[in-house]
């Protein structure tokens, strides 16, 4: 009697194990296949991107990796020694996506994950996220160490465009 109970129990548990594992896989795959259930974080095509700094900043060019370090706050100063104040567009901005992939070398989702790690481990906080390119231009015009990115057709009269090499 006892032996019978011992042989059926592990079999039942193994069956339950398989069911749990398979159900997790099936539900996840269904979510992947169902169209339109997720929220896309951006839709329109990006324009040509330029890097802008304050007009009083003597900087005329910056390396891509240096720029990446500034936006990931691995570098706290610009190459000319000025305290860096990077400024981002919101995560759903097409221009942000372009900047992230071209300059930071990773998708916006990976950058957001990087900042979640930094924020909740007390390492640092991300650059401010502004709603529009106009806000970015205004911020850069106000702050000497500011560096931002906007599209080339934005109103750039109050800021300076620098090259990226």
């Amino acid at each position, binding site marked *: 009697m006892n032996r019978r109970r011992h042989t059926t129990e*592990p079999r039942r548990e193994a069956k339950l194990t398989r069911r749990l594992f*398979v159900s997790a896989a099936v539900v996840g795959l269904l979510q992947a296949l169902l169209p339109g259930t*997720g*929220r896309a974080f951006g839709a329109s095509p990006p324009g040509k991107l330029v890097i802008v700094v304050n007009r009083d900043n003597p900087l005329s060019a910056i390396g891509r990796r240096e720029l990446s370090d500034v936006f990931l706050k691995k*570098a706290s100063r610009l190459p000319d020694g000025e305290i860096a104040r990077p400024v981002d567009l919101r995560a759903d901005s097409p221009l942000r996506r372009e900047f992230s992939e071209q300059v930071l070398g990773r998708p916006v989702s990976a950058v957001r994950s990087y900042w*979640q790690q930094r924020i909740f*481990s007390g390492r640092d906080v991300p650059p401010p996220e502004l709603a529009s390119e106009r806000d970015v231009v205004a911020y850069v015009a106000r702050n000497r160490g500011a560096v931002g990115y906007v599209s080339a057709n934005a109103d750039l009269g109050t800021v300076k465009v620098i090259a990226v090499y």
Partner: protein
Amino acid sequence: MAMVLAGTSLAFAAGAQTNDGDTTTAVDVHGFVSQGFIKTSANDYLAHSKRGSFEFSEAGINFTKSVTDDLRVGFQLFAQDLGPTGDYRPKFDWYFLDWRFRDWLGIRAGRTKIPFGLYNETSDIDAARVPILLPQSVYPIDHRDYLLAQTGAEVYGNVRLGAAGSVEYRAYGGTIFTDPPKPPASGISVDDLQMPYVYGGRVLWSPIDGLSLGGSYQALRFDWTYQLSPELLGPLQTVGVVPAGVGPSLATKFRVKLWVGSLEYQAGPVLFSAEYARWIGEFESLAPKLLPPHVVNERYYGMVSLRVTPWFTPGIYYSVYVPNVEHREGRESHQYDAAVSFRYDLNPHWILKLEGHYLEGTAALDKDLNGGVEAKDLTKTWGMLLLKTTAYF
């Protein structure tokens, strides 16, 4: 305590604002709330999971402020419940003064997260990863009190190496305030726990975009006294496990050295990581037959995730834990864990996750949580399903 913490938070939060970027005088405020569910087909793991458990909750809020361009201060309050641990008791998860006067040299003092491997200091942060449970071989969630944070100081920096990329280093030293460890058997109690030191460091080299290679080391020592009950002491002395004349108090030093080698590579939507670790424990006492003088355990995993769309990211990992490298036979001598995870970003501040595990071995199971049943008598092959949702800002 909760009142004090709440009062402190409110005081700090007075005048707090979100990070809109116009001023360094602003206080940055971030927080998260998580609720999970855990169910196993057999064996209780982390909580009373066999019947299904919602005792899997976390909440945290942090405040940071740049006092000057070089000086930052901040703290995080954290409360959790995971089976028998946590019980929603809020505590200061970390707090610090951070003086970064060069990119290659900064000093942080206070209670700081321990940089061990790729993810130790972010192991509470559900939003920062795909799986619900990080590979438990290298990041055991029930070791949180011992491994997550230390109170002392840390130096850190980021050094650019030109074409060779950059190196981030961190080195720390201090102590850990924690509750006494669980006694090894009934009839034994633990008192007078102290940790004279913990120190260690991590070096992460990023030769190209997306690739990180690193190594971490940590050393610490626990001192405590075992109190052996007379009912236990007599038989132990009779069989020679405890020498005659020793006890009932047994002073013990427990030295632990941990190292891990790490690799992470992000290529577009694909994230791959792998780590291999060994933890070495050495007991020093007058009863070496009772407490093994030298134990080495082995821990490693490989993990990959793929961001299919901005809102859906599946991932898998395989994790191995061997508590004693010299004894690998038997279900209690290992725990192999194959996991598949699905992360669903409902919006930029709310995620839902689903995860399935297929496990073989019982090495990481807690005897007390399993009604006193020894690991060798628990079910060898078992499964686990987890659900978790997290909101964060």
